[in-house]
């Protein structure tokens, strides 16, 4: 039972540069295990240690995203075509989070300074009385 698997550029180091490889399996999980026996390390790039499909890897069976077909339990048939694409994602989140944290720190510092000044002013007022 042969299933055609299309490998993205970034994972071709595991397939000797091949763009398309063949494998077998009743489910996507079985197929990846089969592929890993010939292309060691490939499965580890697609499946987490907890045994789930990586969030930022898209795998398709024919024209369907496997997330809608049961992910690693997705059933496969002879002649199916599986396509793997690393998700194209990113964004400023890292920077935004860092900026938010630094602003938070600055705000916290300003608040404690204000408190110290208020306490000092109150103490001075008490002393003057």
């Amino acid at each position, binding site marked *: 039972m042969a299933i055609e698997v299309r490998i993205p550029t970034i994972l071709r180091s595991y397939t000797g540069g091949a763009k398309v490889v063949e494998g077998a399996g009743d489910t996507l999980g079985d197929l990846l295990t089969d592929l890993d026996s010939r292309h060691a390390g490939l499965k580890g790039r697609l499946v987490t240690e907890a045994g789930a499909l990586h969030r930022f890897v898209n795998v398709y069976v024919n024209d369907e995203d496997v997330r809608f077909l049961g992910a690693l339990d997705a059933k496969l048939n002879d002649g199916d075509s599986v396509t793997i694409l690393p*998700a*194209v994602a990113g964004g400023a989140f*890292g920077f935004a989070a860092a900026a938010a944290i630094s602003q938070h720190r600055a705000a916290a510092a300003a608040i404690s300074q204000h408190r110290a000044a208020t306490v000092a002013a109150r103490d001075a007022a008490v002393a003057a009385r």
Partner: protein
Amino acid sequence: MLSIDRSIVDAIVAHARRDHPDEACGVVAGPVGSDTPTRHIPMENSARSMTFYEFDSMEHLRVWREMDDRDEEPVVIYHSHTATEAYPSRTDISFAGEPGAHYLLVSTREPDTEEIRSFRIVDGVVTEEPVRIVEPAVDPHAVQSYMFGQSPATVDYECSGR
């Protein structure tokens, strides 16, 4: 170095301005091995976020297949940062999955000025590269092919302020 036509840069900036304050994203395809971006494909940001972008998985498959059929590859992958500089964030670096692509970043934080920078991101290493904008040799109004994938009514070339 990334060499890219002025008309494509203008279309990318217009897309980024249009989606501001959300991040915009897309691809410029080109013939395999040419390192020349020729076909602008604005993509939907399925995250619809001011700080994150992600290609819609079905659109991603469709566009990548189309490029395969036309012997093209993603020469440029672009996205916008809407409040920060046009430099890859840690998120961008950890997700960069196309080692052959130029990662183009556009910052829309300033309404009147454009910040466009290009990077290679390979195995977590970021290398900035110069961007050479190629001015049109022909009447730019004769070039209409960059409207691929969207209604011409929504393309506003005036947005870039040129």
